[in-house]
Each structure stands twice: as C-alpha cells, then as structure tokens.
C-alpha cells in the first residue's frame, strides 16, 4: 500500500510523540497508585475512595471503547442513520442499570457481581457460574479491543499487526498488575476527558462550517454520499425483525451484565454515589454518541471523493474504522491526527485494562479464594493470584487478538453484550427481586442461558460459515439474545419453583435479610467478611 505509507509518512513524529506523552503520563499514575495498593479492597475497588463524578467519568471511559468511537463513526460514514441504532442501544442500558441494579449491587457486593449473585445462595456453584459468565463476556469484549488496537497501530505507526497486539498486551498487564483499580480508574478518567475533548473539537469544526445547522450538514452529506438521501433512513444494518429485536435486547440488557462496568460501582463510597455516577456517565456517554454521529457525517462530507482518504474502490484508506482518524487529518492536519490517534489508542488501552482487572477478579476472588480455598482469606495470596491471572489474561488476549485479526469489531462487542444479557443479567436481576429463587434455579438457568448463547453463536453465520466453512448457518440470525434470554429466565423460574431441597428453604429464607440490605445498605460493615 504505497499511498498509505506516503499519507502517514509525515504524521509519524507528531502521533508517536503524543502517544509517548500519554503512555508516560499513565505509567507515572500507575507507579503512584502502586504505592497505595496494599489490600484486596485497594486492588479491586480503589479502597472505595472514588467520588461520583470521577466514577462517572471512569464508567464513561470504560464504555466509550474503540468500538464506540471508531466503529460507530465508521458505521455512520458507511450507512448514515444505521450507526445511530447501535449508539442508542448502547445508551438505553444505562437507565436500566440505574433503576434496577445500581443500588442493590452496591449494597450487597464488595468487589464484583458474583458477590451479589451468590449472596443468599450456595456460594460455590454460583461463583463458578458467575466467573465463567464473566470470563466469556470479557473474552469477546477483549478480542474486539485487541483487534481494534492492532489495526489502529498497524495503520498509524506502520508497525506490523503482530507487534502492535503484543505492545497493547504488555502495557495493559503493566497497568493492572502494578496499579490495580486505582491506576485503572485514573487512566480511564484522563482518557475519558481527552476523548470527549478530541471528539468535541472534531464535531465543532464540522458544525462550524455549516453555521451549526444540522439541516445544512445533512444536506451536504446527502449530496456527497453514494446512497444519497437514503443515509437518513433505516438501511441494511438490521436485516430482519428477529435480528432487530435480538440486537435490541442484547444491547439494552447487556450493559447490566458487563462485569467490568458493574465492578466500578464498588469503587465509590456508598449507593448514593453509585447512583450519581450513573447519572454523570449517562450524560457523558449520550453527549459522546451525538458527537460520533456528527463525526460520521463530517467524514462523509470531507472524505468522500478525496483520493488522499478514499481509494478508487470507494473504501476508506485503512478500513472503515478509520473514519474519525482520517477526518481529524482532513480538518486539523497532522497535529489533530496525532492527537486523535493517541486518544484512540489510549481508549483501547484503558478499556482492556478494565476488562483484564474484571477477569482477574473473577479468577482470583471467585475461583481461587471461594472455590479453591473454600473462602479462607489470605489477602496477600489473593492479590498475588490476581496478578498472575492478569499476566495469563494478557497472554490469552495477545493470542486471541492474533487469531481473530479479520473479525468485525462492532459485531464482536455485540456478542459480548449478548452473553452478558443472557447469562449474567438474568441471575443478577432475579436474585435481587425474586424471593422464591433457589441455588438450583440460578445454577441451571444461568448455565442454560450461557450455553444457549454460545451454541447459537457457533451455529450462526460468523463462526459456522466463516470459520468452519460450512455452506449454510444452522442458526439463521446474527444475534442470539431473543432466544437465549428467555431460556435463562424460564430455566431459573422452572428449576426454582420445583426445588424441594433443604438448600432451597435456606435460599428463600435468606431473601428478606438480603432485600433489606439491598434497599437500605444496613449491615454493610457487619457483612464485610462474607
């Protein structure tokens, strides 16, 4: 790709400098945080010292991933309105988290959602289920981020894809092992501010050209785009009603089952701060999605027809995910391009760190302490195990990032949401609000939801046809949530109401005490050792 080399030859210095500034800044924070991480509470939840606003920014930082920034602006660039379907789906999950999950979650748990899901049940089987559900969700989310990061660095810095993936893996392990949640949170906060700032500048430059009239901007985009006025209408992204509903369900309820997001609620002082942080996060995320929409339209207007950015085949140089990055160059030259690419890279780095930390907590806190050690506590050992788990997850992420190089980033994130909505969300919601739920119901329903999702994903086109090479997919739709969510809920219901075991009596008797604590926070200090 000679034109590509030519195009990026001049920006390397600026972009690399910006990138190095960010990385050294965040490594400094990690060093600072590492001196403050002494207990497991420090490591997983920053000692509960984060304020509502800081946590709101960190949540927004976790959520505004590469798939959001690069993927959605790229989707708007290619198909206009359809990009908005994803943004809205990602956003509407937040009120659900706030209205149903946030306070009980903060009041019942310490480090992760397994604490909450296993609160009144037999700890061991539920923790195993929650840990596997978490790890499955995290793996798919992680693959998407690693692929995005690899592609970005490959294009921007001219590094081979493989070395790019290795760099991301090594940096993320460094942040998490040494700095824990405190460093990860501050990296998220800084990155969220930079990303919001960068996206605001890009959108401002686009809108200023049209005297801040959306109508004029849309008119200019329609004139440029190959599909003309059709970019304003629902298009081909959602192929049939079943896929539309399935994607909608996964996006709306997946947020409430994302382990790395739920983990953030334990970094604040109390339920009130947890609520407040969701409010801030929703504001930042909503604002950000409006910006990505403007950036996508800006990309249509400024990049279409310019041979420096769009090849003869009508495709964007560097792939459709590069719309925001290319627009930065078109509007602000090498300086803005350097800034936006450094921010985009920082985004991915921060998100993979958060994901890895959540994965490490599932392995060390759930599997190692509560299952392997049967709950006997050795804080030093637990942090040690989670650091080893982090390194292992880093190696796994690098390996999978290399294997899945060709996969579509936005689609992979969609699958992570589908697992979260079908395996994690049902047990969290039902354990909080349904008194008659039992250990057996939770275990059977949870595993059914998880396995149904995974099996349907394997049988669908992406894996069955693209990876295994069969002619036709067994499962004709792209997203499984419309089928796997009901399976989980019905499984939980059926295997709870028919449960006549002695454990079931304990489970149901435990509901009142759990409900009181979930609603009021009474007993949090006394319940620390659970």
């Amino acid at each position, binding site marked *: 790709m000679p034109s590509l080399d030519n195009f990026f030859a001049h920006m390397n210095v600026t972009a690399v400098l910006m990138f190095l500034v960010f990385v050294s800044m965040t490594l400094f924070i990690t060093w600072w945080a590492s001196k403050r991480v002494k207990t497991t509470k420090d490591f997983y939840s920053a000692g509960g010292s984060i304020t509502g606003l800081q946590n709101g920014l960190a949540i927004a930082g976790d959520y505004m991933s590469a798939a959001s920034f690069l993927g959605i602006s790229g989707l708007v660039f290619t198909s206009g309105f359809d990009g908005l379907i994803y943004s*809205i789906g990602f956003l509407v999950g*937040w009120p659900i988290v706030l209205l149903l999950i946030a306070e009980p979650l903060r009041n019942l748990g310490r480090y992760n959602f397994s604490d909450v899901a296993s609160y009144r049940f037999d700890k061991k089987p539920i923790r195993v289920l929650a840990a596997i559900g978490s790890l499955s969700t995290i793996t798919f989310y992680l693959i998407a981020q690693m692929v995005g990061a690899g592609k970005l660095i490959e294009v921007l810095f001219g590094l081979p894809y493989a070395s790019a993936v290795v760099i991301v893996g090594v940096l993320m392990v460094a942040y998490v092992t040494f700095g824990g949640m405190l460093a990860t949170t501050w990296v998220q906060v800084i990155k969220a501010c930079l990303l919001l700032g960068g996206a605001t500048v890009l959108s401002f430059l686009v809108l200023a050209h049209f005297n801040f009239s*959306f109508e004029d901007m849309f008119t200019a985009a329609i004139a440029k785009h190959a599909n003309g006025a059709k970019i*304003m*209408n629902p298009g081909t992204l959602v192929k049939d*009603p079943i896929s539309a*509903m399935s994607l909608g369900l996964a996006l709306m309820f997946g947020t409430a089952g994302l382990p790395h997001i739920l983990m953030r609620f334990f970094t604040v002082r109390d339920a009130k701060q947890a*609520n407040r942080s969701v409010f801030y996060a929703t504001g930042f995320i*909503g604002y950000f999605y409006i910006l990505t929409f403007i950036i996508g339209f800006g990309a249509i207007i400024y990049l279409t027809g310019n041979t420096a950015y769009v090849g003869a085949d009508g495709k964007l140089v560097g792939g459709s995910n590069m719309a925001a990055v290319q627009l930065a160059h078109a509007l602000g030259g090498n300086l803005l391009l350097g800034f936006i690419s450094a921010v985009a890279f920082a985004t991915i780095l921060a998100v993979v760190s958060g994901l890895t930390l959540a994965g490490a907590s599932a392995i060390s806190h759930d599997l190692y302490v509560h299952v392997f050690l049967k709950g006997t506590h050795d804080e030093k050992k637990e942090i040690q195990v989670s650091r080893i788990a982090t390194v292992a997850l880093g190696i796994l992420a690098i390996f999978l990032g290399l294997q899945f190089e060709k996969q579509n980033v936005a689609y992979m994130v969609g699958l992570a949401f589908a697992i979260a909505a079908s395996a994690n969300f049902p047990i969290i919601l039902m354990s909080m609000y349904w008194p008659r739920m039992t250990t057996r119901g939770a275990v059977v329903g949870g595993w059914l939801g998880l396995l149904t999702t995974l099996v349907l994903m394997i049988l669908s086109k992406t894996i069955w046809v693209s990876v295994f090479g069969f002619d036709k997919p067994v499962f004709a739709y792209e997203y499984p949530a419309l089928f796997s969510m009901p399976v989980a809920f019905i499984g939980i219901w059926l295997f709870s109401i028919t449960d006549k075991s002695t454990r079931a009596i304990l489970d149901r008797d435990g509901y009142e005490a759990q409900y009181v604590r979930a609603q009021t926070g009474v007993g949090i200090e006394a319940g620390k050792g659970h």
Partner: protein
Amino acid sequence: MTTPVAQLPEFKELIQKRRAIALPLTIIMLLAYFGFILTIAFAPDVLSQKVGSGVTSLGIAIGFGLILLTFIVTGVFVHQSNQKLEGLIDTIHKKIGE
C-alpha cells in the same frame, strides 16, 4: 438483626416510594426503546418520513430524542431519589443505631 428493619414503617415507606419512582421510569424507557426497535423492524418507512420540509428524517429526530430521554430519566431518578429516599434511609440507619 435485620428482621426488625423490615418491620419499620420507614422501610415500608421506602420500598413503596422507590417503586413509585422507579417503575414508571422503567416502563417509559422500555416502551420508548422497544417502540423504536420494533418500528425499525416492522415499519422502517415510518422513520424515513421527513421532518417538516427539510432533509432530516423522523428516525434521526426520534433517535436524538431517545438520547435526550435517557438523560432525563436518569436525572429524574437521581433527583427524586435524593429528595425522597435518602432521608428515609438515614432515618432507618439511625433507628437501628448504625
């Protein structure tokens, strides 16, 4: 020690008030979002209509409206919860001496 809390009048009031705030907001959110998704699924042409005489489609207007609604719903809940629920929770904590 948790059983007495469930008997407190403040606890019953808290549960009632929280439900009165959260339930309608949850229903509004579900109806608005799935209304949007089902329209995309079954009647996409509705969203292709133009708003007024310009080029902006109804779909884009509704989409921006949903983003705004999400923000309003979370804002209303946090405000109401601070106004009506926090005091009750504090009272409960004081009554049982925590």
